[in-house]
């Protein structure tokens, strides 16, 4: 996107380029998180999507979860280090996120193990069984409770970025 001339240029240009790049990262986070929320809402609504879309969407969500965690791995490390601080501000968020990591991972993994369409379509016959079905149901319900909490704990950031994006869009259109 930005050539080397921008990054190697003098202070103000370099600063502007960096700000632009960080804004791009914020935009990526915002839209990616929004897509994840929509994807999860659809995947949870099994009766609405039907089994085939539910399973493929679930596998996609699993991959997206890996990317989401990778993008925020710095935060995970930073907050985990600060956990010993008794007044750490992100402690509640960290606990919710850890529970969500367990819930979502086990939900996707058990979903893969009881797959009736997606994996058999690929010629893979997973370990079906009542334990995995029960685990899938349970973790899906836990995750449905935790996903909105995870979103809501960052509502200020979401509102701020959403407002900035809207202003940016309308400013761009006005030009």
């Amino acid at each position: 996107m930005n050539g080397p001339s921008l990054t190697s240029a003098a202070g103000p240009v370099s600063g502007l380029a960096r700000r632009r790049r960080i804004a791009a990262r914020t935009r990526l986070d915002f839209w990616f998180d929004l897509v994840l929320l929509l994807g999860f809402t659809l995947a949870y609504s099994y009766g609405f999507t039907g089994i085939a879309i539910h399973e493929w969407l679930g596998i996609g969500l699993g991959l997206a979860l890996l990317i989401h965690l990778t993008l925020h791995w710095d935060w995970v490390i930073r907050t985990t280090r600060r956990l010993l601080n008794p007044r750490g501000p992100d402690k509640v968020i960290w606990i919710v996120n850890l529970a969500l990591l367990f819930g979502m991972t086990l939900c996707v993994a058990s979903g893969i193990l009881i797959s009736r369409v997606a994996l058999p379509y690929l010629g893979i016959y997973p370990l079906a069984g009542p334990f995995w079905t029960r685990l899938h149901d349970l973790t899906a319900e836990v995750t449905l409770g935790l996903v909105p909490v995870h979103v809501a704990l960052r509502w200020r950031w979401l509102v701020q970025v959403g407002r900035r994006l809207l202003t940016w869009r309308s400013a761009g259109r006005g030009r």
Partner: protein
Amino acid sequence: MAGPGRAQAADLAFGGAGPVKFLRHLGAVTLVVAVVVVLGLAWNHFGASTLVGGLQASFKQVPPGARPPGAVVLRPGAGGGGPHGPVVIRNGPMNLGLGSMLDPVNLAVLRHTVVIEAVVIAIVVMIDVSRRLWREERRARQLALSRPDDDEPDQ
């Protein structure tokens, strides 16, 4: 240290070191996810009875060849019992439901999910706002107590 150090780190992250850093983080995340999956497998191995309730009715192990009409094969007989081992089936026919999103009746399911999410979000936001207001109020009160003479006019 914060200013220039962070700027350098940002430059590194978005420059040539970006993909390496991303792959390194992806490796760490994959490892964590793998640990959680292994914990799930261990749970299934050592304490499956703690979770399994009345779901047995929907699954059955049958000998090869004895498959009721409409049953869906979940695992062919190549598992623990070898090629002639039991076949795991799910009773009843399977509907892929590819057209279910077009059926307005099923919209109620989606609406139900959205309502649950919206309610939880609203509750958390309300708690957060009221907690912040309470904290600001308390801080203002403490500030007022620590400076009792400020309101008195100068002589």
